């Protein structure tokens, strides 16, 4: 039996409690001492586990490829060679976790830039990235709310999704007809898309059916929702979410006899969809231009490198390609700013950096300018119409303003 004195056991208890707590604090606090000397950390917080993991991994792939290539080329800042390191954390798609991660990357790893691929997460990060902590958020989302927030340290990478509504509507009306069925995914982004396409379709004197959006991630069988949408006898159908389930929905619609046009939300990539279903099922659709259809100076090399790294089964998507470009832009901006630890300076140099980035990093519609709010733009944006002969036809896009 234990026969410690009363005092001793009391101390034992206190010490144990204090010890466990201090230990866990220390375990956490002792994390990072990098970021000094001649290396700089680029932080990344994205969904690396859970439902969004595939998406998060695609983004991470682009970041890794860029960091490898940049280090191989050599980055020199203020006369000193600097190594870029990528540090990734998993946020499971939860905005509050993403913000904690970003804070950690900025505090402990002294990352001047944190990449995040999810609008909710970016909004949460924007609460903390300029003020007590300072870091640039490299935002991979096409939600213009990100730049409307007037956050001085934001760089938004992809085009504003609202720009797609008009060309998509025109194409679908031309090849399909006037009646639209809605079957997008039930996510933040899917809901915004459904709304944008509804408004545009109505403005073009089209008829819009009921909102049949379902959560692509939780539906066990797409046949039910598809049957329902087709019961409206539409001429065109709006679909979109992650590529693979979107492809399944389109396949199911074709099976159930739908022969008209699809509008494919930009989250789904036609080339990636063709890996899970016969491309025949995807024809007569309008969507974003696949990466391998671009003819930028670096596209071909990028695709080769991607195939080496990811294997034959995977196709490169804009999540990978645009973030690849994004890191190259940031690295060049650091060089021009002559600083790895001043996010304001880095942000200020992005505009000049765009003209100086090496051609090999120009992969998919490389931006030519950055707006005051921090949106990277390429004036020559194009979308694709996949015709009955399984050929991509490029359609130019007139971009809308980011302001509300």
């Amino acid at each position, binding site marked *: 039996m234990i026969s410690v004195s009363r005092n001793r056991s009391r101390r034992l208890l206190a010490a144990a409690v204090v010890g466990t707590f201090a230990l866990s604090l220390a375990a956490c606090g002792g994390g990072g001492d990098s970021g000094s000397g001649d290396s700089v950390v680029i932080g990344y917080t994205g969904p690396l586990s859970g439902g969004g*993991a*595939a998406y998060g*991994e695609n983004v991470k792939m682009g970041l890794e490829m860029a960091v490898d290539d940049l280090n191989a080329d050599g980055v020199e800042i203020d006369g000193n060679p600097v190594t870029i390191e990528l540090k990734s954390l998993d946020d499971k798609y939860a905005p509050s976790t993403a913000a904690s991660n970003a804070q950690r990357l900025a505090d402990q790893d002294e990352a001047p830039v944190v990449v995040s691929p999810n609008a909710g997460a970016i909004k949460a990060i924007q609460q903390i990235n300029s003020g007590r902590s300072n870091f640039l958020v490299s935002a991979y989302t096409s939600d213009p709310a990100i730049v409307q927030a007037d956050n001085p340290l934001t760089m938004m990478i992809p085009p504003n999704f609202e720009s797609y509504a008009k060309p998509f509507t025109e194409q679908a009306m031309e090849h399909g007809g006037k009646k639209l069925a809605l079957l997008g995914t039930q996510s933040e982004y899917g809901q915004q898309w459904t709304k944008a396409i509804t408004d545009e379709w109505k403005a073009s004197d089209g008829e819009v059916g009921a909102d049949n959006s379902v959560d692509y991630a939780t539906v066990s069988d797409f046949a039910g929702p598809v049957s329902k949408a087709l019961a409206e006898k539409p001429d065109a159908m709006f679909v979109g979410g992650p590529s693979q389930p979107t492809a399944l929905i389109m396949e199911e619609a074709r099976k159930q006899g739908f022969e008209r046009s699809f509008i494919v939300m930009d989250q789904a990539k036609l080339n990636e969809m063709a890996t899970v279903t016969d491309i025949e099922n995807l024809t007569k659709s309008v969507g974003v231009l696949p990466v391998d259809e671009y003819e930028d100076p670096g596209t071909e090399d990028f695709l080769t490198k991607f195939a080496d790294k990811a294997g034959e089964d995977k196709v490169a998507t804009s999540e990978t390609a645009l973030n690849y470009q994004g890191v190259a832009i940031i690295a060049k901006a650091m060089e021009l700013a002559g600083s790895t630890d001043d996010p304001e300076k880095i942000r200020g140099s992005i505009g000049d950096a765009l003209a100086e980035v090496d051609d090999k990093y120009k992969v998919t519609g490389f931006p030519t300018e950055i707006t005051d709010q921090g949106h990277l733009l390429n004036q020559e944006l194009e979308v694709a119409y996949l015709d009955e002969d399984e050929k991509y036809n490029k359609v130019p896009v007139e971009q809308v303003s980011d302001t509300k």
Partner: protein
Amino acid sequence: MTLFIQQLFNGLALGGVYCLAAIGLTLVFGVLRIPNLAHGALYMLGAYVTYFFLATLGVPYLAAIGIAALVLFVVGVGLERLVFHPLRNSPHTHHMIAAVGAMFFFQSLAQVIWGADFRRMDTPITGSLHILGAEISAQRIVIIITAVVVLALLTWFIKRSIHGQTIEAIEQDRTGAALVGINPSMVSMLTLGLSALLATIAAGLVSPINLLSPTMGDALNLKVFAIIILGGLGSLPGAIIGGFALAIAETMTSTYISSAVGEAVAFIVLVAVLAIRPTGLFTKAVQR
């Protein structure tokens, strides 16, 4: 009318899947008195193992499901031995958290082995049937028929075979069963193995019409819980009727009301039923 027939068959196919998954869960509850929150993860794992045998090793479809079901039977037994057996005398809160831990583990494991990407499982069963103007894919017919056959076999197993009868005996009276020489520990293993096996059959059937991903079990998990609560915990007929009823309610409300209501209908029905009958629809006398 065509739409109605179409959705009825879609609902029946979905119901077959729900049913197979729910029965395993309700059996486990009946015997071990625990809500196994890792059930959806077993379902997911079953899908991946089926995929492995089918796509990687080239085993024919139905054989692949069969082999995967046996593999998962072993996993289920292992889960009982390593996790639930040591906790047999703990309150159900501990089981729940342990099951959540197991769920996290299985999901990560699947992601490490098979990656986070969606995967598609192809089957030799293609084509479709025309029934009263509706277009029903052959895979869905297979799902409905297989579900009915498996359910019949299971009923036979539990009512007629020695091993199956021990399950029912333990469900009815644990102490009494032990007195007549039934080993509760063996029965627990058998039950968890069986539940994993049934979940695998469900997963193997549904995978060709959906995609595989490490989180595919999450959505199913909550619904299956709604079903077994609705049917009455531990009740086989309850799980069967509950499974089909909820699946059809879900497709029909999605069709005729809205998809948002369709998603929530399982839980709305659940709340409504429990408000009237707090122990579910088909509960047997509760042991005290």
